[in-house]
């Protein structure tokens, strides 16, 4: 909200006259231009007070809009579709204006761009429910007409348009009465201006506003990836402004406008302007660089200092067969073509090209040699893209030929640290089908952006795979320490029956668990000291513990895991916890062990997801009792810590009093 609104200048036409076109500013002369009564042009500046006395020009045709952007002279678009530069028009105001569009065709919307320093004008017309786009290259005076095909939804009415421009295309976005946003790509340089061409629109965002809004809706493009939409999301709800990321189809932000709006929205200089109630609201909004991690609010944190830093942001220029579904296929082909030309232009880097061709035909062995050769080379500028292309090529071939599975190659490519899940989602999918736990472990360690569903699928395999098939694999064991014969210096003394400051861990056990525990004392010791899973499985599970996740997305998938696997995992986690607490620093030995927080979080997650199932299982009863005791002792530890803190504070006070010698003393000082 602009706190202190007041007009800086205000001018009005005489009574009876009607302003028929919004006033614009001529940036070159710092003058304002307005049209009243369709044909009368007025030009004035800040010093002028009376609009009636300023420059006036009466034109021979009716004006639709005057368009002005910084850096060029304003254009005048007539209702019949003709366009004139302002200077040329003022030289002869009464000049004849030709008719461009047909009868009953009405201009609905227009926008003015500067592309490569040349003005380009686009306007949309409508006639009997059909929409046409006209692109006027102002320097070459070429006018191209396109027919917009609405696709399946023939009956919808387009409510609002916006457009952004890149090097070759005008991306026209339209908000239809069905509440969806469609995109149409209009080439700036027409292939054949003579022919009437048709354009197809594609769905960009579904149902962003409700279909039957009374006050009208509006949309405006903020940059290539973001659009702002004004309207009410559901039929009954209040109107609101929402900013969408169209690349990832996510809602970036939204703001309710309870006092209603007028269906008008502008974006200028990183500020959104709209009418809210009776006042003009300005909301500063700056589009951040669009990234998937940012769009999902999920950036991986807490990298271990020793490990290689992975690229957090995917290079979106990298061509992917597995590209995101809504990406325009034509566009991506274009990028591919461009890249291929670039690659071939570099005379000294044939290995990458050679590699790509090898992938498609040669044997696994040969591919492996080629990949190794390529990796041995110094990292070339297009290293990332070549790696991406290679993986994509390999995976495509894997899908086509079920027997083809170049495992060693894939492992090597993953270890280049340039891949991520979103670059090649097929990779983990194939590994899951092949039950290649070694590759999955590597992916879990290397990829920052694995979705929770895939993490959970990995977990399922890690828990269900047989011990004998595990024996054959060669998983990385660095996160596992051989717990069976671990005797280390920092090991805490076992204390069982020490009454500490009024608290005894054994004191208030529930009576029936006491009985149960007394029945099998040997079992308990065994349970707490020996690892419930084989070391290789432990290494795999540790990879899961290290992976990033969001609770909300993970919980539903955890419910799908069979109960006996859940118990096994819980037992392992409990074992890890016991190992942690043996140590004074509450850490596990080993190079890259799971942290206490990770262990505790996963225990909580598993119990949250499966408590009703686990509580019914007789074999899990002991585990649950142990976990209950664990939580209880944790609570006690924290309450003890609080007590200690109070005691320390008192001691500190006493210490201060001792140091405070009072206001006067005589002391002995010897200087050496």
């Amino acid at each position: 909200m602009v706190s202190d609104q007041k007009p800086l200048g205000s001018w009005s036409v005489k009574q009876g006259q009607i302003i028929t076109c919004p006033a614009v500013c001529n940036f070159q002369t710092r003058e304002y231009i307005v049209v009243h009564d369709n044909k009368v042009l007025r030009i004035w500046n800040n010093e002028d007070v009376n609009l009636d006395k300023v420059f006036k020009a009466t034109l021979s045709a009716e004006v639709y809009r005057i368009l002005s952007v910084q850096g060029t002279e304003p254009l005048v678009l007539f209702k019949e579709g003709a366009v004139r530069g302002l200077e040329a028009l003022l030289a002869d105001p009464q000049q004849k204006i030709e008719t461009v569009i047909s009868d009953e065709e009405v201009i609905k919307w227009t926008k003015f761009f500067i592309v490569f320093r040349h003005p380009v004008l686009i306007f949309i017309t409508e006639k009997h429910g059909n929409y046409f786009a006209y692109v006027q290259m102002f320097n070459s005076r070429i006018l191209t007409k396109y027919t917009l095909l609405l696709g399946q939804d023939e009956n919808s009415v387009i409510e609002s348009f916006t457009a952004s421009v890149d090097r070759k295309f005008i991306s026209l976005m339209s908000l239809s009465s069905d509440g969806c946003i469609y995109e149409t790509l209009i080439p700036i340089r027409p292939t054949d201006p003579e022919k009437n061409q048709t354009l197809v629109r594609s769905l960009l965002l579904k149902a962003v506003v409700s279909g039957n809004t009374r006050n009208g809706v509006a949309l405006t493009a903020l940059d290539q990836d973001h659009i702002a939409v004004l309207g009410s999301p559901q039929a009954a709800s209040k109107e609101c402004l929402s900013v969408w990321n169209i690349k990832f189809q996510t809602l970036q932000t939204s703001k309710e406008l309870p006092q209603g709006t007028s269906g008008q929205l502008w974006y200028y200089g990183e500020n959104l302007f709209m009418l809210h109630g009776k006042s003009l609201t300005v909301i500063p909004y700056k589009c951040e660089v669009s990234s998937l991690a940012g769009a999902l609010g999920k950036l991986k944190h807490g990298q271990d200092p020793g490990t290689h830093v992975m690229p957090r942001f995917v290079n979106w220029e990298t061509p992917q067969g597995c590209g995101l579904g809504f990406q325009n296929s034509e566009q991506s082909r274009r990028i591919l073509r461009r890249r291929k030309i670039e690659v071939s232009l570099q005379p000294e880097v044939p290995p990458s090209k050679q590699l790509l061709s090898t992938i498609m035909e040669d044997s696994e062995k040969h591919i492996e040699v080629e990949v190794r050769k390529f990796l041995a080379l110094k990292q070339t500028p297009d290293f990332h893209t070549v790696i991406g292309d290679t993986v994509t090529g390999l995976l495509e071939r894997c899908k086509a030929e079920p027997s083809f599975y170049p495992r060693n190659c894939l492992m090597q490519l993953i270890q280049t640290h340039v891949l991520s899940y979103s670059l090649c989602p097929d990779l983990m999918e194939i590994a899951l089908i092949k039950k290649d736990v070694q590759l999955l472990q590597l992916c879990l360690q290397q990829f920052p952006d694995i979705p929770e569903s895939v993490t959970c699928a990995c977990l399922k395999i890690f828990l269900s795979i047989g011990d004998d098939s595990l024996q054959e694999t060669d998983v990385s064991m660095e996160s596992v320490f051989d717990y069976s014969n671990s005797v280390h210096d920092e090991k805490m003394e076992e204390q069982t029956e020490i009454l500490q400051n009024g608290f005894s861990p054994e004191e208030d056990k529930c009576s029936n668990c006491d009985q149960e525990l007394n029945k099998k004392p040997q079992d308990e010791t065994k349970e707490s000291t020996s690892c419930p899973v084989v070391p290789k499985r432990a290494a795999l599970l540790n990879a899961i513990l290290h992976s990033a996740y969001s609770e909300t997305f993970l919980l539903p998938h955890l419910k799908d895991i069979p109960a006996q696997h859940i118990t096994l995992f819980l037992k392992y986690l409990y074992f890890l916890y016991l190992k942690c607490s043996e140590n004074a620093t509450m850490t596990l030995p080993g190079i890259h062990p799971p942290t206490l927080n990770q262990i505790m979080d996963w225990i909580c997650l598993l119990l949250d997801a499966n408590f009703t199932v686990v509580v019914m299982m007789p074999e899990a009863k002991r585990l649950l009792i142990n976990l209950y005791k664990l939580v209880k002792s944790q609570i006690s530890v924290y309450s003890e810590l609080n007590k200690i803190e109070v005691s320390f504070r008192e001691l500190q006070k006493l210490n201060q009093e001792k140091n405070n010698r009072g206001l006067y003393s005589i002391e002995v000082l010897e200087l050496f």
Partner: protein
Amino acid sequence: MGEFKVHRVRFFNYVPSGIRCVAYNNQSNRLAVSRTDGTVEVYNLSANYFQEKVGCEDGSVKLFQITPDKIQFERNFDRQKSRILSLSWHPSGTHVAAGSIDYISVFDVKSGSAIHKMIVDRQHMGVSKRKCIVWGVAFLSDGTVISVDSAGKVQFWDSATGTLVKSHLIANADVQSIAVAEQEDSFVVGTAEGTVFHFQLVPVTSNSSEKQWVRTKPFQHHTHDVRTVAHSPTALISGGTDTHLVIRPLMEKVEVKNYDAALRKITFPHRRLISCSKKRQLLLFQFAHHLELWRLGSTVATGKNGDTLPLSKNADHLLHLKTKGPENIICSCISLCGSWIAYSTVSRFFLYRLNYEHDNISLKRVSKMPPFLRCALQILFSEDSTKLFVASNQGALHIVQLSGGSFKHLHAFQPQSGTVEAMCLLAVSSDGNWLAASGTSAGVHVYNVKQLKLHCTVPAYNFPVTAMAIAPNTNNLVIAHSDQQVFEYSIPDKQYTDWSRTVQKQGFHHLWLQRDTPITHISFHPKRPMHILLHDAYMFCIIDKSLPLPNDKTLLYNPFPPTNESDVVRRRTAHAFKISKIYKPLLFMDLLDERTLVAVERPLDDIIAQLPPPIKKKKFGT
């Protein structure tokens, strides 16, 4: 080296006044600081941040306009409904921005009319506060007005259109002060939470010409309100209710990364507030509006290093002498024999005669002060208490003869022709023959008191004198400067002593030069002519001129006594500087007799306890 009984005094209940305003002058690199009690201090940032001058006003605000011929009332701007709390001129002098309650006005100087009234949002964290006070405004040359207000906002306004451009919410409490760098590429604000924020004009993206104001660095060096800030080309300066003056150099602007790039926190005045009567073991404490006289206690016990001895008699508060009127005390002194007390305010000079009869003490004011003794910057009694030396603010040095209950004006040394600078430090030799006087920059003059003429002038040195004293017997003048250099100048020979030359040749230890408080007092041991005693706020040092000087490789400060070390090692490591850091912050230290020292400390905690409580901040999210 010596064992002393130390009277450790902590009953000097001194609390510095809160800082109200600071102003930085780029040409002279000096900083003016005004405090809530009306005193104005001037710091020379080039001379190791030394406090050069203290002016004591009566607490009222006086506004002077300096014009070549006359002061003229020019124009009444449009009357504003509420009071104006802050003002800022546009650098071109055409417009004035005035911060008021709930709004900011922009005046056109030519017409005197308010061209814009910019309403400040009262909302504070979603709650509408009653009033939003604009505590500070700054007018930039591009027409941007920056305001800081009681709702915790820093806002940017376009004065041409009167519209809000950008708003930063930076604090939950008032933002009270703002200062802009001369280049207008950076500014600093201070909040009531004690935080100072630095804002900088930085490019939106690298190598883009579009720039925006970004909050870059927060600093928390204060516990209380930051009432005022200043921006020098290389540092942010802040001060407030917690009485500290903090100078925080901007690392990116500091060219040489030396000790000058370190943070400075100035809490205590760089001058003495305490004088001592050695014969009667009395301490005179100077406060803004009163003097306190205390008698030290005594003990009969002895002990070893570090022991606290049982008191046989505690310290007594003998006298509480209040000034009349609102004026602050500039300087005060008690004679060595304890029979005379003199002090001066801006407009009056007071001299008292004290009589001691057993435990009773009687005070008699010496009336009819001559008119030239009006405002003294420094007062000193001769060692035999027969003469009084007064440095007046007019530059003259007066010598007054004291006998019985009366006094007689003997002579006045007029300032050198062409100089108007007043002397602010005095030192007299124990035989009463020599008087040394120093201003802030004019060097040290030595006068012959017997012959009443200028004896010599010590060669000029770039840095101001912070303390000086004349050694008994040798009449060597020891001078400490703000750059931590110490010189010894022989008055009879009119030249630096050999020891001083040796010290200058070898140079002081780097740690000695890096101390950031000036030496405020120098004294001598009556039986050990080779010793010089001096102290700053954080250490007390005895320089033994007979020992070798430390070089940068030797350990300057060694708090541990030698234990069973062979004589060889001890001799090799022994050097001239014997330092003790036990007593701090140390406001005064002197030798009462051969074996007794008095140290006056003022612990920071005691000062903080007397300040108003700071704004409470929640801890641990409770």
